[in-house]
């Protein structure tokens, strides 16, 4: 199986290209990179030619006013965008130097490597807390030869939820508070040990205390994962991220270290947005 896919891979990318890509990604420590990425909903273009890289073991925040394409961008990074009817993507997204949109790549496999946390907490309503965390491994058939109990415990601990739910693992996943549900969703995502975790406004449905907890968690997660977070909350981007990308009407306006973007924006539009000029 792996031999076959390896072979197809060789055919589609020339060897030189592959080496180059891999070199590039090791040089700059890039986990993911979008090259000329554009996306459409029907005839409406949501993203225009986005070139952006995401460094490993760091948090990259994507900020911008509503409707600027932030969510679409992260949904292109794990091929969730294409689930929408009439949607279209062009350009490349490299994960460890390989294009995830290459013809032979199965989107399902990409989603196992690039996990996602959504805006609204969405635990599986028919499953217990335990099963919610184990769902990824159970439903993908990856649990074989693994100690499920241990993985569930580790994931919940990593999501800083373990102490709050360890006695109620059999209760429904929807029986806990919204903030806890969101951490449950994070535990569910990390149980599969993805390489990248995408977070699409993970705190927008939560109160300030729950938000603070999730933010703490995000900072802790970058030790093991590459994190990309979409947020409309600029303070949040400043608090948790190492790099920030500012999007406006589907275009990448500015990208840089969070410090530079917030203290020293180079583009006037970025400055205007950050100072509350619009948005």
């Amino acid at each position: 199986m792996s031999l076959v896919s390896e072979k197809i891979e060789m055919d589609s990318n020339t060897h030189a290209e592959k080496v180059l890509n891999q070199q590039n990604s090791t040089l700059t420590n890039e986990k993911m990179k979008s090259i000329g990425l554009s996306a459409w909903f029907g005839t409406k273009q949501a993203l225009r030619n986005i070139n952006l890289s995401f460094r490993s073991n760091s948090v990259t925040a994507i900020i911008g006013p509503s409707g600027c394409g932030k969510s679409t961008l992260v949904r292109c990074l794990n091929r969730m965008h294409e689930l929408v009817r009439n949607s279209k993507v062009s350009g490349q997204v490299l994960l460890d130097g390989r294009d995830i949109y290459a013809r032979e790549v199965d989107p399902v496999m990409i989603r196992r490597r690039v996990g996602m946390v959504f805006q609204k907490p969405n635990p599986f309503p028919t499953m217990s807390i335990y099963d919610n965390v184990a769902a990824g491994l159970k439903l993908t058939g990856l649990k074989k030869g693994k100690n499920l109990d241990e993985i569930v415990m580790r994931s919940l601990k990593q999501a800083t939820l373990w102490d709050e739910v360890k006695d109620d693992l059999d209760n429904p996943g929807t029986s806990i508070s919204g903030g806890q549900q969101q951490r449950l969703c994070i535990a569910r995502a990390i149980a599969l040990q993805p390489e990248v975790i995408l977070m699409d406004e993970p705190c927008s449905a939560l109160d300030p205390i729950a938000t603070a907890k999730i933010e703490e968690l995000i900072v802790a997660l970058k030790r093991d994962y590459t994190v990309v977070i979409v947020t409309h909350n600029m303070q949040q981007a400043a608090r948790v991220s190492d790099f920030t990308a500012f999007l406006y009407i589907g275009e990448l306006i500015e990208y840089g270290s969070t410090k530079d973007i917030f203290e020293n924006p180079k583009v006037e539009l970025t400055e205007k947005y950050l100072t509350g000029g619009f948005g």
Partner: protein
Amino acid sequence: MTSYTYRKFKNKLFFWLSLGCVIIAVLPLLSILFEVVIKGAPQLSIQFITKPVGIMGQSAGGIGPAIQGTLILIGLTSLIGIPIGVISGIYLAEYGDNKYADSIRIINGVLTGVPSIVIGVTVFLAAVIFLRHFSPLAGGLALSIIAIPIIARTTEESLKLVPNSIREASLALGVHKWRTIISVDLPAAKSALITGILLAVARIAGETAPLIMTILGSQTFFEGFNQPMDALPLRIWRDAQLPYANFQAQAWGAALVLILIVLSLNIGVRIANRGRLVK
């Protein structure tokens, strides 16, 4: 102030109007139920539900064969109709985002409106004449044709009620679509789905017209898949036409038994499916 009293009056008026309509809708049903219980209950006895039909002009006997036949028909229809109906419904809900599915939906709607006698005649021409026998299988087939569009429709509706966020949560974990449908979508839709299936079964359990053309009716217990068979609606229909009071009373009893079968099926399935996590 006058406008306030007027608004209050309108509010009251609407309440009483809707309550009145509910009463008008329920009254005939209640009176039928009342009549059936009053006239049918005295008939019930062990002999009544186990003995075969008696000889005309003498003892009316029991309705054992009719009960057996109805149970066989419910079983056959469930066997043929539920899988086909549910799986078509899954197609319409989960893959039916295209014009082919739209036309299937229209056909389904039309099929729901076809008079059941027409379906009976069709199966008579297609199966009974072909097999040269009246047959329980032909009966099950005719009832399945009635049940499939209803089940497909309710399956589609119940799956559409499952929030898309749950579906996306599963797909984003790298779970295949088929697995998502089976392990996430269907469990979430379960209670609505079961209600729909039970309504369809209740509907076909009471069908008479297609049975005249397919299983004909019989005085004896099940004799094989190439022999006529009795069923409760058929028994009621035949008994009611006879000029003997004891057979007419038998019809009332049979009607009550049919209602009880549908009722106990409802309660039974609901108890069996009362999962801890399903609301």
